[in-house]
């Protein structure tokens, strides 16, 4: 089965210059604020996790053509339907036409500050020893990955050095597929610019990614 993410943009060409905006500009329209709030409130029901959310967004066929919060809104609609919380005809009609499904939690207004302040930590306690050590040279996994992953294409099959060891974290590749958290050791792996972009790379560039252990193999 093929899995296509439209969100993996690192190193791609042809998108033109960065268009800056003043620091004070936060939203372009009121609906954007509401799309954000709906996404956070529905996330708080515990029906899906952040990796499922990212997967739902990055595989939208029209990802490239949508603005940021339009992607959020479409991704949210998709999750709601896929998880059986509402049907398409209801979303189109703008009113409830079928019964509600049970959810684990409903975020109430008075719980918002504490819920946001707590966040959703992804660090987990270690049950295995780390496979790689600080300073060790590693090679990243190469080739196609047939599901959601956080290993960007530009950093696949590349040699880097372990720069930080973060401890075990929830593994997005399984968590996004509903296969559980399956925590894996997480590392910051740093690459020389020439390893990623060849000899014409800008001078004195290093780029790091955060990579879970299954993304890495030892270099011998």
């Amino acid at each position: 089965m093929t899995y296509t993410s439209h969100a993996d943009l690192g190193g791609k060409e042809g998108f033109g210059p960065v268009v800056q905006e003043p620091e004070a500009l936060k939203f372009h329209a009121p609906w954007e604020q509401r799309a954000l709030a709906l996404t956070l409130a529905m996330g708080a029901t515990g029906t899906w996790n952040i990796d499922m959310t990212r997967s739902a967004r990055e595989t939208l066929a029209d990802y490239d053509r949508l603005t940021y919060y339009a992607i959020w809104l479409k991704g949210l609609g998709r999750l709601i339907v896929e998880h059986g919380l509402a049907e398409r005809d209801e979303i189109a009609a703008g009113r409830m036409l079928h019964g509600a499904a049970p959810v684990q939690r409903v975020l109430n207004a008075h719980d918002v500050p504490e819920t946001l302040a707590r966040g959703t930590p992804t660090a987990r306690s270690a049950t295995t020893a780390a496979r790689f050590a600080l300073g060790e040279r590693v090679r990243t996994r190469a080739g196609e990955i047939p599901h959601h992953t956080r290993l960007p294409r530009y950093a696949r099959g590349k040699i880097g050095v372990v720069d930080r060891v973060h401890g075990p974290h929830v593994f997005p590749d399984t968590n996004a597929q509903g296969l559980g958290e399956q925590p894996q050791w997480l590392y910051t792996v740093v690459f020389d610019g020439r390893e990623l972009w060849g000899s014409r790379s800008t001078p004195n560039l290093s780029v790091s990614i955060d990579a879970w252990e299954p993304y890495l193999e030892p270099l011998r």
Partner: protein
Amino acid sequence: MPHDAHDDHSELGEMDVRVRALQTVLAQKGYIDPAALDVLIDTYQTKIGPRNGARVVARAWTDAAFRTWLLEDASAAIASLGYTGRQGEHMIAVENTETRHNMVVCTLCSCYPWPVLGLPPTWYKSAPYRSRAVRDPRGVLAEFGVHLPESTEIRVWDSTAEVRYLVLPQRPEGTEALSEEELAELVTRDSMIGTGLPLPKRDAR
């Protein structure tokens, strides 16, 4: 021109209708508390933003013990100033020096340290920045008006996990006499992403 304005208006109106329709369905089903939406919107509109991060940076500039703590355990050091939670659960602070400039991106989506910087600006979430930050950071920096010598190492941190990065910029010269509060005024959002530098003293906000 009036015609364009009209089209814009219709498009915005259409999105507004769609979001409201979705909200109505979700509220009728009892999944959301509409009052919670207002609190969420207000929080990110007025309470959480880059002034938080500016206070962290100014503290690090004036308090050597805090700076050390920030570089060793950013989550704890930042939490001590009251900034915790969603999209900042696992913080790392990276320090700019004479020889190294740090820049943060999320090539895969829009990962960004919300508790200290608020919501990411549109450019941070858009294809030009996400595609070019890792490949042509000097070109991107030039567009932001930042020109670094070729001898300066540029380190780009692609936020591919739930670790969030805050750049600790260099303290501008000639600011020895400034208070922590005055120093915070020099710290721009972009200087904490690494696409900018702090304001020089005379340009204090």
